[in-house]
């Protein structure tokens, strides 16, 4: 037996061995030379095969993260504008309610497209499991759908799109306004943020390690894309009141700064695990989405807006909104894909799960 061959093997002992003979190939090949995983050193792997499985979530799920965020953001802004705004801000509430309904209606369709069969969506609402963000999120999405539908129906009655005497208008009118607004706001905050929490509630290194920032990042992105959708819709359909434009811009800037800060914070806290976000094919979309399209371009487009002619103001507002929306989509796509890449790299997962152990297995 060669039982003792496993003990006391130093790295130097392996010097001169052709790399192709070593068990750990690829990234592990240079580093996993049986020296034992100590802090900061990538561990030895099994032929660089993934140590955990990545979720094969594709474009449908990323798009859903986006539409869910827009719906939540638009609903929240509309509700807050209705509660705290003046008569000028009614247009914001109106646009926000319709946009929220449209985006929330698209969401289950995207999820069903991802699941493959329509009847499978039903099983999401078979039980409520508080420990599973996928379960609570499905209920939250359904709840927001209900409240967004109520708000949009109320708006449609106000706008005369639904006859006041109709059955629908009377039913909607009977729902207490304050209570549905409050519950809807809670659902909005939940749907806007749970997708980020859902991602960090896995073993995927990039998501799991930035668990404190994923929820806030997705919520902030939901808010900024919601604001962008509203200001784009307002600017595209007519002149925007100056006061409204100003607070929409300020809120959007605040969200953009916070989003860039959260993204930078996530990368800083990830340390060496941040690799998929700082190098490779997802780095550019991630930073272009947060810093470029989410912050820099909108700031540039909105500069000196007060003195510009009305037509140019509207054009620039549409451009700003489109930039933020695209940025939000890119951020979600990049975080999902970077997470999947980290799951494929065994060193990343094995490093994450080294724990505080010292002598295990030695």
């Amino acid at each position, binding site marked *: 037996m060669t039982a003792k061959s496993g003990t006391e093997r130093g790295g130097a002992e392996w010097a001169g061995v052709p790399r192709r003979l070593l068990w750990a190939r690829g990234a592990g090949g240079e580093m996993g030379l049986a020296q034992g995983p100590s802090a900061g050193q990538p561990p030895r792997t099994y032929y660089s095969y993934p140590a955990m499985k990545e979720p094969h979530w594709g474009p449908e799920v990323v798009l859903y993260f986006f539409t869910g965020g827009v719906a939540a953001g638009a609903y929240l802004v509309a509700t807050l504008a209705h509660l705290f705004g003046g008569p000028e801000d009614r247009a914001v509430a109106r646009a926000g309610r319709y946009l929220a309904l449209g985006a929330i209606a698209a969401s289950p369709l995207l999820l069903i497209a991802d*699941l493959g069969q329509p009847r499978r969506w039903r099983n999401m609402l078979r039980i409520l499991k508080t420990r599973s963000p996928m379960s609570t999120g499905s209920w939250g999405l359904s709840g927001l759908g209900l409240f967004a539908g109520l708000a949009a129906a109320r708006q449609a009655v106000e706008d005369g799109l639904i006859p006041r005497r109709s059955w629908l208008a009377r039913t909607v009118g009977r729902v207490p306004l304050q209570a549905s607004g409050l519950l809807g706001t809670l659902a909005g905050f939940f749907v806007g943020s749970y997708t980020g929490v859902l991602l960090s509630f896995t073993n995927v290194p990039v998501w799991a390690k930035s668990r404190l920032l994923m929820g806030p990042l997705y919520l902030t992105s939901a808010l900024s894309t919601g604001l962008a959708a509203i200001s784009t819709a307002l600017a595209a359909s007519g002149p925007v009141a100056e006061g409204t434009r100003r607070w929409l811009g300020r809120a959007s800037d605040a969200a953009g700064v916070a989003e860039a800060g959260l993204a930078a914070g996530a990368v800083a806290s990830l340390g060496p695990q941040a690799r998929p976000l700082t190098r490779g094919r997802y780095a550019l979309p991630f930073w272009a989405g947060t810093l470029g399209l989410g912050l820099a371009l909108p700031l540039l487009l909105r500069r000196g807006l007060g003195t510009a002619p009305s037509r140019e103001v509207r054009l620039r507002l549409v451009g700003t909104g489109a930039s933020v929306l695209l940025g939000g989509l890119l951020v979600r796509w990049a975080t999902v894909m970077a997470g999947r890449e980290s799951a494929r790299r065994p060193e990343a997962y094995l490093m994450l799960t080294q724990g505080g152990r010292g002598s295990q297995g030695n």
Partner: protein
Amino acid sequence: MNADVRRIASDQPAGPRYRTGPPELRGEAVLTAGTRIEPGTDYGFFTDTTVCIGCKACEAACKEWNQLPMDAFGLKGTSYDNSGELSATTWRHVAFVEEFGGGNGSGAGRWLFMSDVCKHCEQAGCLEACPTGAIVRTEFGSVLIQEDVCNGCRYCVPSCPFGVITVAEGQGGTAHKCTLCYDRLKVGLEPACAKACPTDSIQFGALADLRERAERRLQEVRERGEARAYLYGVPGGPGATGGVGSLHCFFLLTERPEVYNLPAAPELPSRRVVPAFLATAAAAAFWGVTTAALIRGSRQARRER
């Protein structure tokens, strides 16, 4: 087969699930594994990697009993292990760790074989993540996916700390993994892999028995000179960290866990849900107040003008 064993074997409760098969086969596990299978007891595998010879009989037996389709036919080119990993269509996987070319010029080396399987965790990440309730804890303490309830959301896939579950598009797009041969346990048969194992590297039994057996075996292996040997997945040991509790399918290993592609200190994802939720709630409160203040402020500025 002695009379005593025959008596125990035929002494199974006369429920409908024991009606199939000839009487002498009821409770067959008594004969093959020395264990009578009863609902309400936790069962599992003790996989002793020191006696595994890498024959992959367990993989073949598993595929055959569970009627799993073959995987892509080809050579991986990394070792003699060409199945590579556990997946929806490979519920047992024998890893071939090659330790050759070791420095002192003797050319001596060794193979480490390890038959990997779903760990049927005490606290299972997949079970907690599943939004539909498709993943359940059975009366045998195992973790089972009900294929008619699973809706293919794939959330269990990254929630498993051991990379056991995947979704096979060819199999209805739902998640699949080892069932601890639930159908066999129901009729008193030990799981196919354990029955097929020619060296008893895979031992099936009641968890309490297995742990005792494993401790004895560990002492024996250490006394014989394999000082690095340890148990992976017993309470308090590596593999049973971070809220996972313990593994119903545990292993005797002689190298660090990573060498077998196992995490040394896995963590249950649900451990992160409270801090993540609190951070998010704080962000929600911040944005609610900030946005409301911006709208309010703008309205007041307009009034004053």
